[in-house]
């Protein structure tokens, strides 16, 4: 469906070159929810934006690599052709719905704009209105007619994200990229939005790239996971496998830093264990360490980790790890 091949992306900041993505590859299969997990600054949002060529030219660019959508390289398409895919066959939703909706247009108009843009059946304005209402009902808005006439600031965060989703789905896309879709929302709302996304994915047969820093969300929604660290994918497997047999020390660290529900409930006050954090900090992207980028923080580091970045190896079937010690 969608294949990212050896993508290198650079950003320019204060005269320095920052390698945001280094040789990143991934494959999204039809009807699949693929999770991309990592700490902030690991390049996951960059990946989402580069797929649709949304990185502002002044800030950075794709240096090399391919993004194949049904065999066509999105990076080499003319602007005109790109616009027939962007927002049409591949849609994207963002982290903060409040800043992502245009404050001066009514939500209905913003959805209508997408509808008109990707209008496949030449709808009349009356049909467009009906279609907006259908979409708002699809994302479970209680009062679609009121929502249509509201400005974004009149809606709650959860409702704004629903509008964003409705807008993204208005073109009946094949792929939905969700860049931290629930991070800016309250916990209770997060759950609703995730459930909505999962339900819509099944109902509409969407293929979804879900970008998140939260393994809990991955467990609930994704079939497969790619774990990213410092601009590169370090581990990739089906969700169950990652949770039960994490092979990369970074993935293990991330999973150990999650509070599990049973644990949290069973601890008495004096027993309370501190959540395990990965020691050290995410490396400065303009000054990455040599070799395996995780080695300064890795509990299992050996001399061989330092000179060269490890290759991605298939340790168990369909379970890929970028660590020379994996499988030891």
């Amino acid at each position, binding site marked *: 469906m969608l294949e990212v091949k050896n993508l290198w992306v650079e950003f320019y900041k204060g005269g320095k070159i920052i390698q945001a993505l280094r040789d990143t590859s991934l494959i999204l299969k039809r009807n699949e929810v693929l999770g991309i997990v990592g700490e902030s600054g690991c390049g996951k949002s960059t990946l989402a934006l580069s797929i649709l060529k949304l990185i502002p030219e002044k800030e950075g660019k794709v240096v090399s690599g391919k993004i194949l959508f049904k065999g066509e390289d999105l990076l080499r398409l003319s602007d005109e052709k790109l616009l027939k895919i962007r927002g049409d066959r591949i849609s994207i939703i963002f982290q903060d719905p409040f800043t992502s909706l245009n404050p001066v247009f009514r939500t209905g108009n913003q959805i209508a704009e997408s509808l008109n*843009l990707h209008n496949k059946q030449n709808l009349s304005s009356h049909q467009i209105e009906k279609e907006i209402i259908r979409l708002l009902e699809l994302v479970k808005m209680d009062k679609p007619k009121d929502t249509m006439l509201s400005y974004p600031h009149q809606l709650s965060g959860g409702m704004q994200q629903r509008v964003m989703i409705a807008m993204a789905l208005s073109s009946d896309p094949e792929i939905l990229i969700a860049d931290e879709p629930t991070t800016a929302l309250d916990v209770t709302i997060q759950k609703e939005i995730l459930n909505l996304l999962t339900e819509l994915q099944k109902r509409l047969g969407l293929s979804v790239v879900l970008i998140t820093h939260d393994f809990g969300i991955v467990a609930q929604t994704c079939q497969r996971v790619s774990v990213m660290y410092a601009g590169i994918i370090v581990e990739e497997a089906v969700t169950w496998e990652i949770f039960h047999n994490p092979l990369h020390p970074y993935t293990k660290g991330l999973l150990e830093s999650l509070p599990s529900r049973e644990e949290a409930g069973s601890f008495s006050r004096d027993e309370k264990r501190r959540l395990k954090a990965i020691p050290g900090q995410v490396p400065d992207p303009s000054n990455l360490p040599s070799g395996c980028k995780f080695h300064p923080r890795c509990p299992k580091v050996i001399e061989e980790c330092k000179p060269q970045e490890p290759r991605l190896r298939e340790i168990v079937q369909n379970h890929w790890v970028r660590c020379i010690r994996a499988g030891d």
Partner: protein
Amino acid sequence: MLEYIARRLLFMIPLLLGITIITFVVIHLSPGGPADMLTGLSPKVSAEAKARLHSLYGLDKPLHVQYWLWLTRLMRFDFGESFKDGRLVIMKILERLPATLLLNVLSLLLIFFIALPIGIISAVRQDSFFDKGMTVFVFLGFSVPAFWLALLLMLLFGVFLGWLPISGMHSVNFPYFSFWEKLWDVIKHLILPVFISAFGGLAYLSRYSRTSMLEVLRQDYVRTARAKGLPEKKVIYRHALRNALIPIVTLLGLSLPALIGGGFIFETIFAWPGMGRLGYQAIMARDYPVIMGVGVIAALLTLLGNLIADITYAFVDPRIRYR
């Protein structure tokens, strides 16, 4: 909304009072009075004659009494009579007001229709040749004093080239012109004053709209607009521009006082028969009623400009709704 406007209009009353008090005090603090200006140069005028003049104008009364008298007359829309020629102040202002409004409205339009596109294009093509050129122009606009530039341009276009008249609003033989000739005559007289009074504003607003647009172009909703698949033109001229205009609209009202203030200087330089020149001449002659009258009208125009800006603000930004 109507209630809001009514309230704002009510609030203008204390503001106007404050402005008139300050104007009144300042003008009386300045050395020399109308009697001196009329008589000071003549050694033949006796002290008694001066005193007579003083009491004639009511200047022998204490300041607060004078102010109160002036204010009570103003309540009845009576601006008094000019000390200089005894004509009604309101008449003197009314015959000057159209010229001032013409000049100011035109330069305001010029500022907006030239500075706005310059700023927007500069922002969209940041660091391009155009952007850099405009930065130099803006730098000049900020640094060159407009009155000096006015004199240079008068010299160039009026004296050396002889293309444009350098003063007044009409030619001497204006009454004998046909309608089209009259129109052309006024336009020719307008070119330099309009350009000069727009000059500073051009630099300022183009810079301001560039900043505003750059700010908006960084916003998430612009990225959303691109992500929708909108062509870049629509992203910029529909989604970004609409938001960038919001802060610029407020400037519309705020630039009005500057234009009226500038009018005092430019109208004098170009001998433009407007309110600014009337005010300048009145100040020179210590013609208190005229000064106060011009002050009140200018303050009123300024406050109205602010009100209009606030109302437009509510129209362009749905997040603002006045209670």
